[in-house]
């Protein structure tokens, strides 16, 4: 047996496995903030990355423009037909908006769950190992970005801010598998809305799963899914995607809708970070004191 313990390599291996488990355990737990050495390394590499990726973005944009030129004619024809509808739609939206704000003034409820401020940002990096779906953006806490803010592109919601540094932050995409990643969503029906949670991503089919939909609720293909704002973190009304399929969930108690995300999770260059205007209720306001005594 003494020979076994004298084997230096074996001991190094064992010690490093222990250190590995400890480190993984340390970084997996729910952390409010990254430690400062991590922030420092991330900011430094973020600076180098933005030096490289901004010219790269520019060049990629140039080639994309060239490609766009090729099908300009067809696009133009299609867009023209749509523009005519848009004018009348816009007028209607204006009228409704004004109506809405007037009525709100009368009620005295000026804030809504849908109000938010925006902060544009550029993507400067993406996780190359592609297990943990994350992107790095070039705005950090100095620009007022906080953990858990929603991140969207022009086509819809793509994820939430996972961690913030001074000059850069990390965004976790909706396609990442994270059991803590639950977003309260609403499926807009003609008569009534149906509520559920975005929970999980089907990697093979590239579809989002919306779970906890009551079994009686009627969900149809093609309905639009947006955030509801009831989760307390995201504002309401951010586009998520369209329903493509409805199933009963594994226990047969609830329904599960498969949703094709509106945003492309791959070709992301510019994003918008959403700061919710309405404040988050404090924990003690949600749960009444009596319950906690029990």
């Amino acid at each position, binding site marked *: 047996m003494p020979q076994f313990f004298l084997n230096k390599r074996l001991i190094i291996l064992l010690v490093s496995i222990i250190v590995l488990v400890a480190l993984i355990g340390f970084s997996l737990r729910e952390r409010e903030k990254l430690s400062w050495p991590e922030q420092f390394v991330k900011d430094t590499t973020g600076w180098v990355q933005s030096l490289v990726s901004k010219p790269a973005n520019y060049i990629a944009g140039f080639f994309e423009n060239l490609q766009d030129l090729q099908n300009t004619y067809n696009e133009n024809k299609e867009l023209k037909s749509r523009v005519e509808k848009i004018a009348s739609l816009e007028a209607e939206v204006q009228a409704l908006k004004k109506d809405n704000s007037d009525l709100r003034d009368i009620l005295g409820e000026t804030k809504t769950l849908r109000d938010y401020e925006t902060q544009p940002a550029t993507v400067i990096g993406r996780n190359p190992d592609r297990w943990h779906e994350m992107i790095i953006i070039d705005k950090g806490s100095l620009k007022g970005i906080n953990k858990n803010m929603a991140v969207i592109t022009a086509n819809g919601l793509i994820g939430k801010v996972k961690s913030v540094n001074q000059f850069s932050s990390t965004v976790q995409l909706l396609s990442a598998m994270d059991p803590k990643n639950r977003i309260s969503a609403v499926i807009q029906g003609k008569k009534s809305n149906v509520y559920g949670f975005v929970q999980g991503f089907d990697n093979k089919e590239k579809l989002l799963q919306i779970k906890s939909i009551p079994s009686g609720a009627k969900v149809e293909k093609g309905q639009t899914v947006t955030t509801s704002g009831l989760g307390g973190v995201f504002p309401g009304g951010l586009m998520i995607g369209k329903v493509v399929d409805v199933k009963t969930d594994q226990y047969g108690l609830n329904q599960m809708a498969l949703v094709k995300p509106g945003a492309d999770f791959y070709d*992301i260059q510019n994003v918008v970070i959403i700061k919710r205007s309405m404040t988050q209720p404090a924990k003690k306001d949600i749960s009444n004191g009596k319950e906690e005594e029990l």
Partner: protein
Amino acid sequence: MRKFLLPLLFMLLFIAESLFVQFLPADVLGQNRILAPRFLFSGLLLLTIFVGRKQGIIYAAIFGLIFDIVYIEIIGIYLFLFPFVAYLISKIMHVLQANMIVAFVVSVFGIALLEVGVYEMDYLIHVTNLEFIDFLNLRLYPTLILNAAFLLIFIFPLKRYFEKYADALRDE
């Protein structure tokens, strides 16, 4: 000058990986295939093969740590796997001759080891729930093809550079 060139080269590969993923269209090799670039690790393996075990493992550990902090936010996975696979590869190279074809085959093997290792770890901590057979088809084979192509192009200049570096180290 020479001292800064090697870290700079790896830093470049480190950023190139992220840029590659950022600008790669979603479906290159058909539907849903995932191509993970391992340019940095290919470079680290070639360093281990052509320069030496000590340099290889030290660089692997440092860049593994940076990779963990910047891209993964879970410290430990690459910090452990990069040096571990580099060590195994250096053991294999004891019995093999360090020419270009052998280095190519051994590097591809090393990348396969790394991929399987990362998959097992991520499966363990519930980052993924992909079945092993799906992992092979959707991820491992496309990744190996991509990195083999990268190695085919860059193995010659990297080998020349690393051998010069090794000579310079010996002279000191």
